[in-house]
């Protein structure tokens, strides 16, 4: 355990539109290893929620099992949370979302929690397009159980034990795009400048938003031979585009050059301005997005940024035409229309 965190904060701590400071979005002190990428992601989540002026009580944190899944204890201490079982966060999140669509759902999972034990649940939550942000803190290993290779570890990559991983890896982003996800992004825990706006855009998107964040495990997988180390990621990362995220109701003040900048309006009214690094990549087209991922993979590069975005899809509630009312506020008269309606229905089948 580290020393307790002092209660004092900077006297000039800025306030957001709700009058809250960043402190109102903090959680308990982290118990993860010093230097863990997951802690950085927790802080990026804090920053994103603070900057978006989200009401902490309007957020629900969902997670599975793993070091990554522990992190909801370390951010948004005033929000709702459910720490579920290994690989089962998607079904719990689905249930919660079906019952109350008014909350902002932030799911936190690991590469083991998602790509190994939770794969069955993951693919279905993507297909169903549940309205949530699904963050994978991707360290290429099972951190909590002492660093075994996970399904996202690249072939040939080696962690602390030194044995290169013999199996092919799963690219969760590519898979999610193939399964029809409307928002897929990749970030790096060591680059908050990119990660925070990615998270803000993901929150602004309606439907399933996957943010795969490469998050070095300093203890078991930050070696020279690992493709999930700080050094490797820094040396090999490229971005589809740099971008600005303009939150809803904020005035747009910058003029963008036509041609290289592409703008996408999100469901909540926020706008993403993408300034392309490579003109051939159109992240609004699914095929193009998958091509870009494959091309970078072949070159041994790691593609980051917003990988795919499509604002035209329906989310689970729309697909299923569910009620807009929260289930706990549905009264008996809403649920039980009475004998006359029943008789009318019966009449139809006569």
């Amino acid at each position: 355990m580290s020393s307790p965190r002092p209660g004092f904060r900077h006297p000039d701590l800025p306030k957001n539109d709700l009058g809250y400071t960043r402190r109102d979005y903090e959680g308990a002190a982290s118990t993860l290893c010093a230097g863990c990428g997951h802690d950085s992601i927790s802080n990026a989540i804090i920053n994103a929620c603070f900057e978006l002026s989200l009401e902490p009580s309007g957020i629900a944190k969902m997670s599975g099992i793993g070091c990554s899944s522990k992190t909801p204890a370390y951010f948004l201490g005033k929000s709702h949370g459910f720490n579920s079982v290994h690989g089962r966060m998607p079904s719990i999140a689905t249930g919660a979302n079906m019952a109350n669509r008014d909350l902002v759902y932030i799911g936190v999972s690991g590469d083991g929690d998602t790509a190994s034990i939770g794969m069955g649940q993951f693919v279905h939550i993507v297909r169903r397009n549940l309205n949530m942000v699904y963050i994978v803190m991707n360290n290429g290993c099972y951190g909590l159980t002492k660093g075994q290779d996970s399904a996202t570890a690249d072939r040939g990559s080696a962690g602390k034990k030194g044995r290169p991983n013999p199996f092919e890896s799963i690219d969760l982003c590519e898979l999610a795009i193939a399964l029809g996800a409307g928002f897929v992004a990749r970030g790096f825990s060591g680059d908050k400048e990119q990660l925070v706006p990615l998270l803000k855009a993901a929150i602004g998107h309606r439907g399933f938003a996957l943010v795969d964040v490469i998050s070095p495990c300093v203890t078991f997988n930050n070696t020279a031979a690992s493709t999930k180390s700080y050094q490797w990621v820094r040396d090999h990362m490229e971005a589809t585009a740099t971008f600005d995220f303009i939150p809803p109701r904020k005035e747009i003040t910058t003029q963008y050059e036509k041609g290289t900048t592409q703008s996408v309006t999100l469901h909540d009214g926020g706008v993403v301005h993408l300034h392309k690094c490579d003109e051939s990549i159109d992240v609004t087209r699914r095929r193009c997005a998958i091509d870009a991922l494959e091309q970078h993979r072949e070159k041994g590069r790691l593609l980051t940024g917003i990988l795919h975005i499509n604002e035209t899809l329906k989310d689970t509630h729309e697909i299923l035409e569910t009620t807009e009312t929260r289930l706990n506020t549905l009264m008996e008269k809403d649920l039980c229309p009475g004998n006359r309606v029943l008789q009318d229905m019966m009449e139809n089948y006569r």
Partner: protein
Amino acid sequence: MGEQILNPTDIQDPEYFHKVIDCQFACPAHTRVPEYLRLISEEKYDDAYMINWESNVFPGILGRVCDRPCEPACRRRRVEDKAVAICRLKRVCADHKGDITKRFPAIPGQKNGKKIALIGGGPASLTVARDLLPLGYEIDLYDDQAEAGGFIRSQVPSFRLPKKVLDEEVSYILDMGVKAHFNTYISSMKEFLKKDYDAVFIGTGAPRGKDLDLPGRQEGKTFIHIGINWLASVQYGHVKKSGKTTLVIGGGNTAMDCCRTARRLGGEKVKVVVRGSRKKMKASEWEIEDALREDIPILEYLSPLAFVVEKGRLTGMTFQPSPEGPAPDQKEIFIPCDEVLIAVGQQNAFPWIEKDIGLIFNDSNRPKVDEITFQSSIKKIFFGGDAAFGPKNVITAVAHGHEAAISIDLFCRGEDLLNRPRPATTLAGQKMGLHDWMYHNEVSEQQRQAVPMASKVKSIKDRLMEVELGFDRKIGRTEALRCLNCDMQTVFSLPLCIECDACVDVCPTTCINFIQNDDEENLRAGLSIPAGNKSQDLYVSGLLPTGRVMVKDENVCLHCGLCAERCPTSAWDMQKYMYETAKAGGK
């Protein structure tokens, strides 16, 4: 990007980390405050006392009456409003120490053959004696009073500083072998120089109180006194009673001592009158509080016009309300009184230094004195304390004394006075285990502790009764633990950093940033919380692999060590910085 990007901070510069220790840096004698506060929290009072004694010579005295420039500078004020009670804690170690005399430096039996004269027996001269006696110098001290101590004896009232405390610390120095010539007023410098001392130190203070030359001053003179003269007469027992309704004119610390003394000598209605606003008064905040506590009102925005004397008796004074005050258009007002104490400032006066001895004076009638060496235009004559640059305070006089002693020693050894000894510094790691530091890094959230006071009713009746009772051991410990240990420095090692952001994320006060380098102004504005306090430095690293630099705003760092605990590579380390000013001859 701005024109001039910042160079990496040179932490080898002894002043860089010194400045981070706000209190020590602000203390004219650079007392190692956090070190002695830690010792007090461990109840090691003798050690704490000696740290003080080496720097400020009068811990028991200063622990009561110091002007405490350290406290407004204290970091704690920037994170939580109220400073650590540094001064009152100094008193704690003085009150609770044992016999420390055996720790004093040895005085060589064999003298070095040089004789030094000190004129004036105040804190400045006593400090010179303290520094030169261990080096084998012979010291002759001349003072016109019967005992040593200067203004701290003749001016500072006993209800703030008991005679016993004063006597004890003054005699520590006299007992080191000072040859004292008391009741000896030096009336001619020309004559004095014939004594052929190797060097002369003049620490005669600023002994002349300013007067108010207004109508009625002559007629009322038996009822009107210059504050500092009056206070001395009270201290020496010549004055035993004051008027019933006394007006004190002036808003400095002398005025506060006058009004509180008058209350103790029978003054029932004592009032302080100031020209400007109360907020702008020169007196220390705590002295004003004490006066108010003793039912002494402070009347603002009144300029004195005249003393009103009827039939040979003073009946009051007239004042002009100031245009900036609440009643700008009001005509003059009359305030009745039967005694007036004038406390409107002090001046230097050197009637005993002949103009033809070759000593150059500047236009404010003070000798020309070098600000570093304290040497005058006559090479073997040195000045210090209030005599050098006008009235200040005890701790400044002590600081001058130390520097003058260095100069006198260099001078007597025929060395260059500007080739001054450097401060002794060390930077030492504080790691014990993974998360254990050799200091108490948990930040106490206790509020500043109140000091116990004697009852007002009793203390008003007795001018010798000390008002502040001082912290006991327990309160002392609680208060000492409020110190943030600003001498435990965060030291950054560029090659070790992997830019994981752990330190950025954990820092409770958002000090640490990794950003593009820029000029100072842009860098300050671009930090995640802009670094608006320009008096506090930025700690900037060299270029990191991502092309960024680490920038730490020193302003509100809590020295909690969490950055170092959470850094996976020990790129941050907590290291204790010891900075000790040089003393004459290295003693």
